[in-house]
Each structure stands twice: as C-alpha cells, then as structure tokens.
C-alpha cells in the first residue's frame, strides 16, 4: 500500500496477455526533435553472390504505406532470378527513389527512403544522388534540418594511405606493359584496381605499347609480395595486345566482324544438321596408281580429265551396284532413289555450294568432267539455278588441292552420305613378292553416312566396292 504522494510501489500483475495493447501505456506524443529527419536509406542489395546490378521489377508498397519489419518491399531481378527484397525496419515508405522498371541499378544505390512511424513522410529530405554513401548518419545530435548539400566524409581511398590493391588480371596487364599502377584510377570495391581500370590506363598510354617490354618491376606496395618475379626481359612485343589467360576475348584484343546473312544461315543450318543427324564415319585408303596411269594416258590423247572426275564416276558406279546406299531420309525411313545424282562441293567466297551432276552413272568421265567444270564456274559467278543445286543423293567433297590428307564432312540433308576426299600422298610400301620397296600414291577417303540409313556395315561394304572400282578403273566399264 502506498499513499498518494508516494511514487514508489510494487506492481502485482495477475495476467499479462501476449501482446498488451497500447491503450494501457501512458500516451505521449512529444518526440525528440532530432529524430524527425533521419530517413533510413534502403539500398540496392546483392541478392546473389555474383550480382553487381539489378533491375527493379515492381514495388510492392506505395509511398506513404506502412512497412513492418519482414514485409516485402519490392521485387528485384538479379542476374539469376527475381527475388523479393524485405524490409528490416518498421516504418513508413517515404519516397521511392528508383521507379519500377529501372534497369541496371548498381549495388549500393539508394532505392527508397523509410521514415519512422508518426513522422511526416511527405517532408522527407532526399539525399542528393551523387553523395558518396557512408553507412554512418549522426542521429541524436544532428540538427533538425540535415545539411542539404552534404559533405559526409567520403570513404578514403586506400591508394593514398594504404597498400595498393590490384586484381590479378590487372597486375598482369600492368606488369607486361610496364605501367605504373599508381596512375590507374581504382573503381573496384575498397579501392581495388580492376582489369577494366588497367585496360583504361593502357588505352591512355598508347606510346608504351610500341616499345618492347622491359623488366619493369611492379610498383612497390606496402604489403610484401610472397613471390615477386618481374617479367623476363625481351618477352614478346605488344602488337597485338596480349590477351589475359582465362579471358581471351578481352576488349582491345579482338575485332568483331558482323556476319552476313548467308553466313548466319549457314551457321544455323550446320548446327542443326550436325546435331540432329547421327553421323557414322568410315575411311579407306585407295591406291591411285591405276587412275593416275589412265589419266596420263588420256592426256596423251588430248582428253583432259581430273582425278576428281574419276572419283565421281567411281562413286556413281558403286551406287549403281549398291542401290541401298542411294537413299534419302524421308522422315521416318529410307527412300530409295531411282537415279544417281552426285553433288560436288565447290568452295566460293560466299560459302560452300553443292551443284549436282545428274545421272552420273550413265555419263562417261569426259562428260562428267565437262559438267563439273561448267557448274563450278557458274557457282563462282553465283549463277547457279535452283535445279542445279537442289536434289542429289550423294555428295563428294574434295579438299585434296589444299593438301589435306583426310577429313570428315557434314552430311547435306536429305542425302544419306558424303564422301570426303583427301590428297594423293606418296607412301613407301614393301612388296611381298620380291621384298623391294615401292612408292604408292595413297588417297584417303572418308565416308560420313547417316547412321539411320547407312550404318557402319553398309558403309564399309560401299567403301570397299568404291576402292575396288577406283583402283581398277576397268571395272567401271562393267557398269
């Protein structure tokens, strides 16, 4: 018990509910003046470890709306997903500084201001956008109106007072070009000189690029390096600029060539058919002695044919003998063709074109030769008609004139096979009969076939027959 004048006492509480309503408290509306104008800044957070900037997708609270700790404030699109930003404080959302739909907002930029409940949120002071954002705000002692043109102490740059901080890529670039890191302006966190800063410094000093790199020791830093090795003298000159390991395509080390439409279409088509058609490969070496002999014999009679023409003829003849290879893919199965049209691949400036030699099996080598020459010329001039390059059941691609020994080609759909022909090369062979050495002219051909139509077994038999036809051209008279 106590008298009225006694201000002390012991309070006995019978029951306290979990949340006591505010009505029981003495209601006091006087607040300290210094609290009024210190809005809480909401900054753009790093919602994923690799995030540098984000987009604000949607604000979930309006200006003037009350916000409780844990409430969702806005949706932010990171480099990976859309994540909701929650508020850590209670208050009223006073001002949205960055509207929804803004893109590429950097980490740390203030995006909104929160004030405490009960304050006039309309009168909130908006900090100027270019002021550096130190975390400290002087709360209780600040006067009512915070300085409108603030100069809060900017974060001191460690380059002036502390050790130089270089990223490994930046250090490599500056070392190789013999540049002074102190001249670079750091833009990374806590005064880090990033690779971009190093490259900017490089751009600004083009005179240094032309001189050969001397062993310029790296700029001294307060922290001792554990393994300090200056670049060896006489290392390679800087034209073109060195690329950085792991990042070969750094700016300044490549030029972009825009792709023409034809190239783009070729690229797209090639990707599609290389990935959708199951290719099977088979190679065989052909002894070209007989063909060479035949060719030179014909040349004596003023008939000019090339080795390629013989190859075309041999392929056509083999296809006639093995019609199950002369198929196309009709969507769900092989579709045997009744005529043999061979496409030959011609390299032009605009890419690869495949004009067709029609009915090759029934033409002689001379006629094939004439056709091939005419078509090649038309292809180079870009004057091929559609029926001259559409269709065909088998392709031949010869890169022998470039000295290529062997290669594998990509099938032209809807064809089943393509034969890749290399150059004739000389090889020594031991003759069984009399144990003497003999030079052979071998030529490697590789057949790429559509595994659904011409599997390895069939391809091998085809190649064997083809080789026999080519090595003994007299067989072609039988067809």
């Amino acid at each position, binding site marked *: *018990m*106590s008298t*009225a004048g*006694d*201000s*002390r*006492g*012991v*309070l*006995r*509480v*019978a*029951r*306290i509910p*979990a*949340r*006591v309503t505010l009505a*029981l*408290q*003495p*209601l*006091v*509306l*006087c*607040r*300290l003046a210094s*609290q009024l104008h210190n809005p809480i800044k909401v*900054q753009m*957070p*790093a*919602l994923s*470890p690799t995030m540098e900037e984000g987009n604000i997708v949607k604000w979930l609270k309006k200006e003037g709306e009350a916000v*409780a*700790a*844990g*409430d*969702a404030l806005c949706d932010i699109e990171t480099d990976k997903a859309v*994540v*909701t930003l929650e508020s*850590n*404080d209670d208050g009223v959302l006073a001002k949205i500084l960055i509207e929804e739909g803004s893109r590429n907002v950097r*980490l*740390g930029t203030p995006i909104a201001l929160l004030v405490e409940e009960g304050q006039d949120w309309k009168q909130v002071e908006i900090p100027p956008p270019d002021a550096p954002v*130190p*975390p*400290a*705000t*002087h*709360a*209780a002692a600040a006067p009512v109106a915070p300085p409108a043109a603030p100069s809060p102490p900017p*974060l*001191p740059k*460690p380059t002036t007072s*502390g050790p130089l901080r270089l990223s490994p890529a930046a250090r490599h670039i500056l070392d190789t070009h013999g540049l002074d890191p102190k001249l670079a302006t750091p833009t990374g*966190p806590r005064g880090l000189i990033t690779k971009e800063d190093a490259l900017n410094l490089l751009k600004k000093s083009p005179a240094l690029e032309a001189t050969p790199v001397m062993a310029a020791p790296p700029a001294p830093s*307060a*922290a*001792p390096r*554990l*393994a300090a090795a200056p670049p060896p003298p006489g290392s390679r000159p800087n034209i073109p600029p060195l690329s950085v390991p792991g990042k070969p395509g750094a700016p300044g080390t490549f030029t972009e060539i825009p792709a023409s439409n034809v190239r783009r279409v070729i690229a797209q088509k090639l990707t599609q058919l290389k990935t959708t058609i199951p290719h099977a490969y088979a190679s065989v070496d052909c002894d070209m002695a007989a063909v060479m002999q035949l060719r030179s014999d014909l040349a004596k009679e003023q008939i000019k044919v090339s080795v390629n023409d013989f190859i075309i003829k041999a392929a056509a003849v083999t296809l006639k003998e093995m019609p199950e290879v002369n198929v196309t893919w009709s969507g769900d199965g092989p579709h045997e063709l009744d005529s043999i049209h061979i496409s030959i691949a011609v390299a032009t400036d605009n890419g690869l074109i495949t004009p067709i030699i029609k009915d090759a099996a029934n033409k002689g080598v001379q006629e094939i030769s004439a056709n091939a020459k005419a078509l090649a010329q038309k292809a180079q001039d870009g004057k091929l008609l559609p029926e001259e390059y559409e269709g065909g059941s088998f392709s031949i691609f010869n890169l022998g004139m470039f000295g290529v020994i062997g290669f594998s080609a990509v099938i032209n759909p809807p064809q089943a096979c393509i034969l890749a022909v290399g150059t004739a090369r000389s090889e020594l062979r031991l003759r069984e009969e009399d144990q003497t050495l003999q030079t052979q002219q071998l030529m490697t051909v590789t057949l790429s076939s559509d595994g659904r139509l011409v599997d390895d077994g069939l391809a091998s038999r085809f190649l064997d027959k083809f080789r026999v036809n080519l090595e003994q051209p007299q067989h072609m008279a039988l067809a």
Partner: protein
Amino acid sequence: VVELLTTDGLWLRGSSGARVVVSRSFADFTPQATFEIKKCDLHRLEDGPPLEAELTRDQALQYYRTMQTVRRMELKADQLYKQKIIRGFCHLYDGQEACAVGIEAAITPSDHLITSYRAHGYTYTRGVSVKAILAELTGRKGGVAKGKGGSMHMYGHHFYGGNGIVGAQVPLGAGIALACQYQGNNQICVTLYGDGAANQGQLFESFNMAALWKLPCIFICENNKYGMGTSVERASACTDYYKRGDYIPGIKVDGMDVLCVREATKFAADYCRAGKGPIVMELETYRYHGHSMSDPGVSYRTREEIQEVRSKSDPISLLKDRMLSSNMASVEELKEIDIAIRKEVEDAAQFATLDPEPSLEELCSHIYQNSPPLEVRGTHPWAKLKSSY
C-alpha cells in the same frame, strides 16, 4: 488485469487537446515487478523452474538493451552482407535474442559457453563488443579474431565459439564440463546446438558420458523449427528434443520469453552445480532470417508465418510490453535506448568498413598458442612462409 498501486498523474491536456508531458523523473518508475511465466514441460523431473519471475527495472533495461543491440547488429550485418562488404558465411540470430540474453542472465561470466555457427548473439553476450564482432565479419584486423576467423570463428572469455561443423561442439562442451568437474571450480558449461544437430550421433555419445560421470553440463537445443530448410517434422522421428536425452532429465522452455529462459537456465545451473549431473533444455524459438545469407528463408515457410511470429511472439516486443504495462519504463526512454543502440551499431559498422585488413605478415601467426617464429609450408611443398610469432 493490472493493479497500479502508484498514481502520479503528471499528464496534462493542453488547450488543443494534445497531450503534453511534463518531465518525469526516473523515480516514477516501478523498480521491480513479478511476472507470470509459462509452465515448462518436464522430463524425468519432479519439480521444474518457478512459475513466476521477478524483474527489476535495471535488469529489464539491461535485457532490453542487450536484445536490441543483438537485433540491430544482426540487421546491420544483413545490410553489410547485401552490400558485399561482408562475404562468405553469415548465419543471423535475429528472432532468437531471448535465448542468448536469458541464458547469460542466469549464469556467471566464469561459467563456460559453447555454441554452433549462429553465434553472433552469444559472442556479444559473452562480452565481445559490437565493433569487434562486425570487424571480424568484414575480415579486418580490428576483429575479435584479428580478421582471420570470420563469422563462425569468434571467441571470447570462456566462450568457445563459433563452430562450423554441425553438432561438433557438443562433445567439446561435455569436455569443458569435464574440466570444470576435474578442477572442482563449481563452474558449469552451457552447450548449445540446434534442432538440425539434435539427430547427430556424437550428441548421444556425449549424453552418455556426461550422465555417466555426472558432468556439470547443460545441453540446450535451440529449436527454431527448421534445420536449414527442413522442418522438424520432416527431420526427426521424435520432435520432443528435451526428451531426447532419455535418461537425462529435460525441460522444455518458451525461448521467446527472456524471463522463462532465465528461470529455466537458473534452475538447470543449480541442478548441475548440485552435482546431480547433466540436464537437457529445449528452447522453442524462431529465426526471422533464412538459415544463412544465401537462403531467402521463404521457400520452405510462408511470409505470413514469419509475420505472425513477429507480431505475436517477438522477444523484444514481449519484454517491451511487459515493461510498459508495468510502468517500468516509458516509451521515450526505450526510444532513446533504441537510438543510442542504432548509433552504436552504425559507428561499429563504419569502423568495420574502414578498418584495414590484417597485413600479410600475419598470415602464419597464431598457429600455436606460444611459439617462436617458425617456418610454415606454403601452397606447395617448396613454398616456405615465415610466421612472425
């Protein structure tokens, strides 16, 4: 129902109807009050902690201050992490402040405490300053572990961290209790673990040895309902963690009420100091953030659930309401404390951001407790580093 035995009406109504306060002296506040606290479920115990707790004004303000500091410190760590000033692991403790503060209120600074990686709150209650904690999180030389430990390796006086491996600290805690028993110094060891670690095998090995040798160890399970993202129903066959000690007595405590935690820990400490052996406590609590900073925390629970806990059982709000309803403090006083704490945490964050990192000479130091400079193997057998001490 509240009976106010003092009436000192110093409130005036101004002419416009606004209420104005004339200065109130601290002598107007109630110096002490008794509150009812929830009854604790008991396992293998006849009597449990008392049903009423006495709270003085000073104690109340101290608990409020500590809890609010831990809360703001954790939120500031969240903010700094989102600005990429803190990197790596960061497991935040906001929502669970009553556990740390209640336990600390019941033990003495000479008692021992060891916990898991959600340790920032305990680091503070065991005596490390906010500045040192935040600087350790940012990895600067002003940090409590000189910037070399980070979030999960902070230590203090009779505080053994800060342990990254789940459940690894429980055998260590039993060992510390063994040391207390061996040295006969009447100290106890409080060993904390979470609901996720409660199913680890080494805990039961520790229980066995502690019970066998009657070690003065309080095993406390902080059950925040989710082990990373797995709710307790999906993780444990038996979710009564206070009963998991089997032959060890257990108490289940409301971990959001700081007074309940304090009384239960006092009871447990007395039990251990009397030589009766170990005791298990389960603190039912809740964390507002996700498991760590890479966990948004809303993929396995709804935002509504978090908001509900925040509004109904937030530990700081509970204490604040108690203080205000029993007239132990005024709203402005608490607001002043809030502002002061905010400033303290801001200053600490500023320090943590601007402090320099430890220099490279420190790389190999502090390997042994007491040794002259020695040679240390670097990243490959032919790289040699020198430690300064």
